[in-house]
């Protein structure tokens, strides 16, 4: 029991921080309730998916700078496909496309042995161009049923958007996490030589990790068009936001440590800080400064606490 608490101390801490911030929001704006929660969750959805995808890649010891561009490609593809086919086949095709794009990223890294950061930086531009080829200006359609999917709350105080991400993560990540593949992903991120010597197929594992990130990025793209109702070919601000949430969520940038829950909670923490500062009528320029300071402070505090924990 102690051990479970110890291993998940970071996630628990973030959860407490999130609850505290929700309390602060309620204090500043007494009207904040189910509706506020619902719109917060909805707005955070694309960020949450981008972050989940990034987290998998970072755990595997890489980084995917092209994640926002993959989201854009998937978003416009789905919006275009839905002009001529039903929502379900369009979504399935889009998810496959995301997996393929992620696998291409991973495959290039493994085959060329060029560092992850360089390959995915290059692919950032490639996918960006692809998105503009598919749709040169915002357009396409989104099935109304899909839009309804992420709106409202089936269960009181539990927004549907939250359920969407919970279901996706439990379908995409949990089976992997519980299988040997999940261990392999952690292993190659932790020490790829030791993983190789333990009999892990390092290259294949890396490709799969990037493929999974691609699927989650595709979900991010889909959730974005569900939010806006239109395909947008220019990538949004999801790259740096996802890296920030991954770090804040307790995933070590060197790989091998952390999970998906922490980063997703971190997304909500970062979103709600922004909400609070907006509600408190703080200068938007100051807002970003505060966000940056909080990130450094939390990660530093976490490092100090973990270090103490190891020592005692």
């Amino acid at each position: 029991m102690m051990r479970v608490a110890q291993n998940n101390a970071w996630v628990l801490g973030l959860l407490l921080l999130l609850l505290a911030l929700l309390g602060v929001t309620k204090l500043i704006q007494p009207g904040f309730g189910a509706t506020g929660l619902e719109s917060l969750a909805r707005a955070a959805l694309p960020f949450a998916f981008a972050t989940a995808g990034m987290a998998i890649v970072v755990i595997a010891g890489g980084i995917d700078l092209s994640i926002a561009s993959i989201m854009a490609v998937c978003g416009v593809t789905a919006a275009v496909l839905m002009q001529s086919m039903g929502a379900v086949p369009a979504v399935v095709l889009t998810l496959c496309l995301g997996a393929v794009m992620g696998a291409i990223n991973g495959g290039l890294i493994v085959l060329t042995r060029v560092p992850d950061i360089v390959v995915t930086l290059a692919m950032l531009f490639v996918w960006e161009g692809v998105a503009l080829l598919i749709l040169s200006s915002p357009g396409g359609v989104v099935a109304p049923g899909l839009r309804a999917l992420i709106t409202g709350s089936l269960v009181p105080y539990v927004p549907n958007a939250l359920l969407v991400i919970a279901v996706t993560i439990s379908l995409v990540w949990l089976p992997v996490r519980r299988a040997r593949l999940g261990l392999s992903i952690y292993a190659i991120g932790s020490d790829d030589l030791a993983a190789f010597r333990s009999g892990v197929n390092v290259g294949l594992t890396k490709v799969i990790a990037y493929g999974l990130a691609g699927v989650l990025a595709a979900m991010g793209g889909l959730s974005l068009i569900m939010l806006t109702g239109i395909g947008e070919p220019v990538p949004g601000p999801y790259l740096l936001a996802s890296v920030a949430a991954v770090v804040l969520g307790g995933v070590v940038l060197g790989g091998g440590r952390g999970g998906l829950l922490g980063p997703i909670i971190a997304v909500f923490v970062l979103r709600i800080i922004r909400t609070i500062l907006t509600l408190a009528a703080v200068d938007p320029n100051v807002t970003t400064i505060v966000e940056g300071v909080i990130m450094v402070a939390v990660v530093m505090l976490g490092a100090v606490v973990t270090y103490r924990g190891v020592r005692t």
Partner: protein
Amino acid sequence: MVETDQTYLLDATGVAKSFGAVRALTEASLQVAAGQVVALMGANGAGKSTFVKILTGALRPDSGRVLIRGNVARVGSPAEARRSGVVPVYQEPSLIPDLDVADNLRLGATPVEPFRHWVAELGIKALRLDHMIGDLPLATLRILDLARALAAQPDVLLLDEMTAALPTDLVERVLKVVRGQADEGRGVIYISHRFTEIAELCDSATVLRDGRTVGAVKIEPGVEDRVVEMMLGAKLDLGAAAGRVAPIAQGIPRLRLRGLEIVPKVSDVTFDLHAGEVLGVVALEGQGQDEVFDVLAGFRRATGGTLEVDGTAASFGHPADAIAAGLTFVPGDRAAALLRQRSVRENIALPFSARIRDWGPLRARHERARVNHAIEKLQIDTRAQGEVQRLSGGNQQKVTIGRWLAHGVRTLLLFDPTRGIDVRTKRQIYPLVRELAEQGAAVLFYTSELEEIPLACDRVVVIFNGRVVDILDAAGATEAVLMRAAYGLTAERAAS
């Protein structure tokens, strides 16, 4: 060869492997029969590690064949080698630091119960499967590695320097278990620098030299000399030692080490280094010499014993402290010491601007004269002087040493400066080292090439298993004498 008319568990013949222009292995062979423990031996750079990597599937050979149980083995990865029955325990732990013990077992599909059995058998009590690997001490990790390999029930077990990081009680256990494995009909390949262990455990020894198997011998009393001879072979003569008179050691030594201890590798290192002297250090890989140099260079602190510099006690917490005390470290890895994109001239002049009070305008004339002198000494082709990275490895190393000619140095710590350098350049490096000593510097010179000792050094200390086992006059130190000492043979004789 020892035996010929039977099917070996593992039979490698004519294995060759090149890395670019470097031929690491030319014709390596090794046979292991059931029930046998075979020692694989060779001096540093003989090709042992490359051979191990090929046998375990981490590298593919250019040519040659590896038979396992008489079948041609296509081992393309450690996983395949494992399936075909060859299970290695590598020199460094190969467990994933961020996973716990149970997950590491799942990763390699290792059955848990046999693993637990072997861990207990090997003398580790109270191991919990939910311990993170990263939190466990090195010795425990080595045991876990071995237990994992044993649990896989290998046909052939390959142990690479398994006992290097282990305390003696665990070594005893390991040897007993490994012997038991052989008695059950498995084959074992045992790589170690320790003759005592080999004598206790092994049936025969296969000796590698310069990438080729030079023979296999049965282990019997007195075989050490023959193995040492085989490892050395006939060497190219590097030129006779210059007729030097060893300076008489007197006055306060520049460096005075007394019972230096660095847990876990170094237990007792004691020697004096005087001004004007080149003191050689001879040791096999991983006997604690790296740690001793780390302490002298200020990268880490000693855990016991005393270090005196010019008669005052010293303990360096940072490389800057060591440099301030006049100790200059030249690493074996040239890339770590040079600005690769800058010119030879700048690299040599660099120490002139290392101190903050030297950050003003360059004192051009004074500097240029000394730099010119150094460049002349270095005999570097001037056409390639624009960027250090365009120089050959040997010439780069000359720059790392030569810069101290221009700058002046009190105590120079050279760590294997001639590794991977051609014979001609080597011969230019020894006079550089000698000249530094004649200028009054004290030089500590670790080298993995034994034949260099009489050429560059006045005296030589031999480190084995973390302690100084011998201090010899360099002039009379032949390779055979040094090799025997480096393998701890003289010390054992004296003790027994």
